[in-house]
């Protein structure tokens, strides 16, 4: 299109014959037609201060982020998941706060015994305290999840952002590479790649997650940057002499980062469960590292005799993953302007 369409067409072409799909999505009834469209339009108008300039009560300047934060503070889902995550983070940094024992101090004579005073969750197959091991497992799970997410988010948004901004050949190549990575089954890939690793640290697992996870973020970041760079304010910044890096960092990134944050938050939960999956399969973390996945794996053999050994680490894993997914949902709701 050689010419920009006139403003009216772009903004108010909400004829009853063809309302944009977003409007249908927020319209309470499917056939609300003009009435619903009218009310949503009135809302948009209301948000633009129309009164005489400089008058009226002075409200604090609000950005997208402070708006989102205001929404989040009122959202019970956010509060609950936030508190759970806060608790998990605290005990992963200072497990000594709620347990005084060592996860590696085991007494075989107590193997598979149930709950008893001082050991509320009972003992596992090696006679280790399940409660302490579950508490210490948090550290590994959270570290792996957080590190993998940071790596994925940085690598993915860097590559995807550049590809989306510059387009052309590099973009095509990157898109094909992401397609290839999407074709790799995660668990199978983990079994193949991690089975050759002998290191006993969390880094191979984190590295594997970053390797397989970045294409997802890269695709989101690319799409988000492509939509954002078409905005008038980016053209305007360019017309006023902003350099490419300035446009990308100052004008595009802050406006394009929201979807990446949402995807990353939800992905954090899935990385935690992926770590457990890989450890369960014996290719993730290895003993003596304390991990929910390892504990679940060793407990699964005794599920009929001593189910408590399985239930506690599995429950902790489920709660953690759920908390991150709920947090991601809440963040998405707060950052998605279409839902307002």
């Amino acid at each position, binding site marked *: *299109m*050689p*010419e*920009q*369409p*006139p*403003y009216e067409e772009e903004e108010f072409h909400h004829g009853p014959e063809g309302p944009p799909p977003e409007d249908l999505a927020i319209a309470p009834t499917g056939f609300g037609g003009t009435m619903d469209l009218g009310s949503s339009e009135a809302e948009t108008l209301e*948000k*633009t*201060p*129309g009164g005489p*300039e*400089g008058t009226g009560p*002075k409200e604090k*300047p*609000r*950005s*997208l*982020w402070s708006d989102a934060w205001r929404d989040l503070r009122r959202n019970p889902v956010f509060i609950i998941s936030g508190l759970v995550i806060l608790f998990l983070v605290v005990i992963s940094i200072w497990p000594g706060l709620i347990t005084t024992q060592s996860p590696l101090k085991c007494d075989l004579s107590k193997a598979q015994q149930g709950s008893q005073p001082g050991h509320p969750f009972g003992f596992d197959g090696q006679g280790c305290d399940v409660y302490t091991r579950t508490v210490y497992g948090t550290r590994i799970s959270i570290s792996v999840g957080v590190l993998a997410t940071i790596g994925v988010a940085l690598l993915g948004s860097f590559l995807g952002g550049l590809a989306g901004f510059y387009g052309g050949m590099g973009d095509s190549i990157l898109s094909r590479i992401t397609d290839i990575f999407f074709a790799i089954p995660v668990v199978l890939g983990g079994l193949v790649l991690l089975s050759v690793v002998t290191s006993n640290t969390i880094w191979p697992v984190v590295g594997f997650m970053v390797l397989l996870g970045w294409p997802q973020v890269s695709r989101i970041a690319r799409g988000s940057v492509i939509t954002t760079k078409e*905005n*008038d*304010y980016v*053209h*305007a*910044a*360019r*017309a*006023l*002499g*902003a*350099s490419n890096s*300035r446009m990308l960092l*100052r*004008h595009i990134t*802050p*406006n394009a980062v929201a979807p990446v944050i949402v995807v990353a938050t939800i992905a954090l939960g899935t990385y935690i469960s992926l770590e457990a999956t890989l450890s369960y399969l014996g290719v993730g973390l290895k003993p003596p590292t304390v991990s929910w996945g390892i504990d679940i794996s060793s407990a699964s053999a005794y599920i009929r005799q001593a189910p408590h050994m399985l239930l506690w680490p599995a429950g902790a894993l489920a709660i953690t993953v759920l908390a991150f997914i709920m947090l991601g949902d809440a963040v998405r709701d707060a950052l998605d302007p279409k839902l307002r």
Partner: protein
Amino acid sequence: MLLEVRDLQVEFRTRDGVAKAVNGVNYSVDEGQTLAVLGESGSGKSVTAQAVMGILDMPPGKITGGEILFKGKDLLKYKEEERRKVRGAEMAMIFQDALSSLNPVISVGDQLGEMFIVHRGMSRKDARAKAVELMEHVRIPGAKERVRDYPHQFSGGMRQRIMIAMALALEPSLIIADEPTTALDVTVQAQVMDLLAELQRELNMGLILITHDLGVVADVADKIAVMYAGRIVEEAPVHDIYKAPAHPYTKGLLDSIPRLDQKGQELYAIKGLPPNLMHIPPGCAFNPRCPMAQDICRSEVPPLAEVDADRGSACFFWRECLDDSSRN
């Protein structure tokens, strides 16, 4: 001459073919002068402006010929980095929709201040002070308090004032305003236009005003260039054109303005549609819609004939058109 566009040609290469958006445009503007570029959507007026600014998306756009002389130097020969330094500092652009032209996540003070940080290397604090100064200059009430506000907290007129302030921040010698008042209320339109004209006089800038609103043009412009299908079909001092247009297209545009003395009569409209830029009709691009079209119009492209010393018309029959308009 401050800016001289010579025989500019721009194409858009799309999947469906090549759209010739600009086909040999010539215009010029001097310091302190206002040139109004008039035309329908798709006439190439914005594309020409984007080419001058160097913000055309390439690809799909491509400048296939011509020169853009700014202060005597051909901008098309500049490297991108040199070009960028010209933008904002020596020439700036004001866009149609100020809300979407301002970054929603950065406060207006920071956006204004950015001009000084990018081009002048000022500190954040000095830039902020400059931003307040600029906001006062474009008469935003309570500038000191509002400098931290975000674009959506301003009304349309105020936002356009901020946009103007941004464009004028570094006192460029050329401003291109692409339909600066189209998105505003009629009452605000006049205020914004007055402000722009006043600042232009104050800074002695050249102004290219792109518009399809003939009412806006009459008050502020010195000369008018009317564009159709990527060419300038008529160029004239503003009063001459209103008195007696020398091109049937200009005449059609002027006749389609509602007038009080024609109350009750049907409003004139130019029949037909603007041409598809991928298939511009042979000969004069306007011929399928022209009431005066003859055989020659369908086979030959009319050159810009000199009507007067400072006036031109790209019509074989400009004399007849002029006589016809003068009679009415």
